[in-house]
């Protein structure tokens, strides 16, 4: 590919579209379209449908039950899924842990954990950040001390997404205080039901519960749950960060949201005319649309590079910065388009049978969506950190 897809890739796109049309429940995509978050049951439902088709672990090698897709196919799948307002594949088990296990895990670990990710037996969460170790992840303090055939883990993890649903957590823990900070970190798999683990919800500004604090007090972890070698965890974590981040800009989600925004702004009237015809508003929409069109091409360039065997390095930082800024502007415009109709606060709006709304459907989650997505420029390495990476890696500054 250069900046367009091959005939074979286009055919694959058709296949994905047909699958989405057939399998994605209209009620679920309608809910997602209005900015609603899928429930655990809905995520499980979607995972099961994908797994049935063999598309859940689409980027895993075939020998482990994956589809062995190329980065281009994976990108097409994600793009089309976002355009159709399908739930995203929950990344923790399938996309974050599995590649590490496949590359660095023991045979026994692969044999035990990979099938359980596929069939949904285990829901995973990620234990990386800590209160004092956010952007500066290597300063993490949660400790694991070897005692016989166990590690004893003590400490605290922060911003643990979906910990409230998880059966397992993969954690970065400190096993040594000697030498460089990065060289004393290990990668441990911990059962969330172990005694001494305490999960506390963290409510975010829009009122939602996505993230948690996870406390560890003398938690016993069998040594066979160590991945790879002791004190090499940083290498494994870094491998994850360079692994397949070609869709980090979330182009599909932005294209879909832009379409939704324009539709809503056409319906909304200002002085008797569609809001979208109002120059002040239209100019902002046009600006973000240009940025998005532009982003599509940049994304394809990065993808073409990867398809030709390159590894996305600091380019994924570029994709993340630009992509999140675009998405945040779209949520901001959606909220603007709804005006005061976006101001009502309905935490119960996600519940079924809710009919207390004032104003159009699009207004229901407009504010919640805007506030919630302030996180995009913070998590997964804040945009400030991404700019540091660009300065260092691309510019040599």
């Amino acid at each position, binding site marked *: 590919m250069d900046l367009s897809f091959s005939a074979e890739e286009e055919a694959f796109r058709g296949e994905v579209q047909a699958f989405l049309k057939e399998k994605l429940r209209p009620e679920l995509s309608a809910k997602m379209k209005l900015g609603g978050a899928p429930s655990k049951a809905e995520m499980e439902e979607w995972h099961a449908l994908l797994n049935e088709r063999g598309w859940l672990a689409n980027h895993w090698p075939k020998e482990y039950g994956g589809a062995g897709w190329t980065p281009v196919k994976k990108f097409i799948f994600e793009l089309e899924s976002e355009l159709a307002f399908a739930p995203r594949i929950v990344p923790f088990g399938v996309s974050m842990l599995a590649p590490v296990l496949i590359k660095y895990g023991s045979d026994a670990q692969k044999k035990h954990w990979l099938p359980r990710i596929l069939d949904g037996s285990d829901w995973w969460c990620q234990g990386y950040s800590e209160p004092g170790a956010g952007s500066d992840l290597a*300063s993490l303090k949660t400790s694991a001390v070897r005692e016989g055939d166990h590690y004893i883990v003590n400490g605290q993890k922060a911003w643990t997404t979906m910990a409230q649903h998880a059966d397992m957590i993969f954690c970065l823990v400190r096993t040594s205080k000697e030498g460089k900070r990065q060289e004393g970190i290990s990668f441990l798999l911990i059962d969330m039901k172990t005694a001494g683990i305490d999960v506390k919800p963290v409510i975010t*500004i829009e009122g939602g519960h996505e993230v948690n604090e996870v406390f560890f007090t003398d938690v016993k972890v069998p040594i066979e749950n160590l991945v790879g070698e002791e004190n090499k965890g940083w290498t494994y974590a870094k491998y994850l960060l360079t692994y397949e981040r070609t869709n980090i800009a979330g182009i599909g989600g932005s294209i879909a949201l832009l379409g939704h925004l324009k539709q809503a702004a056409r319906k909304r009237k200002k002085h008797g005319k569609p809001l979208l015809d109002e120059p002040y508003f239209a100019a902002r929409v046009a600006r973000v649309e240009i940025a998005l069109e532009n982003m599509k091409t940049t994304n394809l360039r990065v993808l073409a590079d990867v398809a030709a065997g390159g590894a996305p390095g600091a380019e994924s930082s570029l994709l993340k910065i630009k992509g999140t800024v675009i998405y945040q502007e779209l949520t901001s415009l959606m909220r603007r388009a709804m005006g005061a109709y976006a101001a009502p*606060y309905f935490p119960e709006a996600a519940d079924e049978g809710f009919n207390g709304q004032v104003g159009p459907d699009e207004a229901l989650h407009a504010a919640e969506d805007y506030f919630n997505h302030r996180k995009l420029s*913070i998590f997964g390495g804040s945009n400030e950190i991404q700019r540091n990476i660009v300065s260092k890696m691309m510019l040599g500054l």
Partner: protein
Amino acid sequence: MEILIEDHQMLLNSATGYLAKKQSVAAFRALRDGDEPLGYDATAYRQMADLGWMGLVLPEEYGGSDFGYRAAGLIAEQMGRNLTAMPFVSTAILSATILREIGGDMLTEWGMKIAMGECVVALAIDEGAKHRPGQIKTQAVRDGDGYLLSGDKSFIADGMGADRLIVSAMLEGELTLFWLDPLEACFGTSCCDIAPQKLLDHRNYASFYIKNCRLNENTLIAKGEVAEKALAKALCAGRAVVAAEQLGMAKECAARTVEYLNTRKQFGVLIGVFQTLQHRMAHLYCEIEQTSSLVAQALNAIDENAEECEKLSRAAKAKVAKLGKLATEEAVQMHGGIGMTDELDLGLFMKRDRVLTEFLGDAACHIEWLLREQKI
């Protein structure tokens, strides 16, 4: 960089002291979590009146202090910094200004009550998602010696439990203001009702619909030019004072962020040493100072009854909408994950800011007016 006249400085000192002690963000949080239906603390409301804040824009002979709008803006700014929830803008600014403009018996009776903190009077003008006080559908028709009122009103600040509602309606093709006693209106019947509106900022808002509700003759308090003039003045005042409140919120977010940059360590250093963050805070500082000037200018123009007060109050409201967005978004971003939590106060500022941006018209609404009316 503020130099205030002595009276204003004293007022400001008493406001910072009282609000920090009694009406801080913690007090607002307690109201929110306690689901207080009024959205404010009635005892504190009386205390605020005792401090003279409810009568700032009312003449002395009606129980006020006539300190003026600039003074009211100073108070509102401090309320913004503390997220104080009080029927201040609704009653002491919007309604008091209308009464002051109308004068007569209404001002004699109700001016005093407002100044004493004995009543809440809410202004019911908005009818939909956007603030369009000049394009209303609520209609009144004459019915013997009274009127029949029909229409929908929404986003009425402090409307639930208010002692009186000032309702805008069209009567014989003219803008008219009615003085509605909620207890005498037919609320709660099948054709008329009032209900709370729960907005992001967890304050007291109401919406009502009314159909052929019979009003007495004396409920009409202004019609035609008098009503237009009184409402225009009240809206000027409301915009400028709300802008002051939002300005206070932006200042508070900036101050808290500077403090965080000076305490949070990553990579072994305070994050405040990073130049990229320093420059962004410097930019925010400049924007805050520019906005402070515009807000002060608008408030002074209202006090001086200057012709530019409409233009300036709209410009200030539009400018502060941009500032509020910048300040709250930067505060959350620079605090990182912790800034996203409900436990930290920044989200409360962000949500209140967005509601105030809509209240009395957003930036687009005012910029459009400036373009049209000023022939820019």
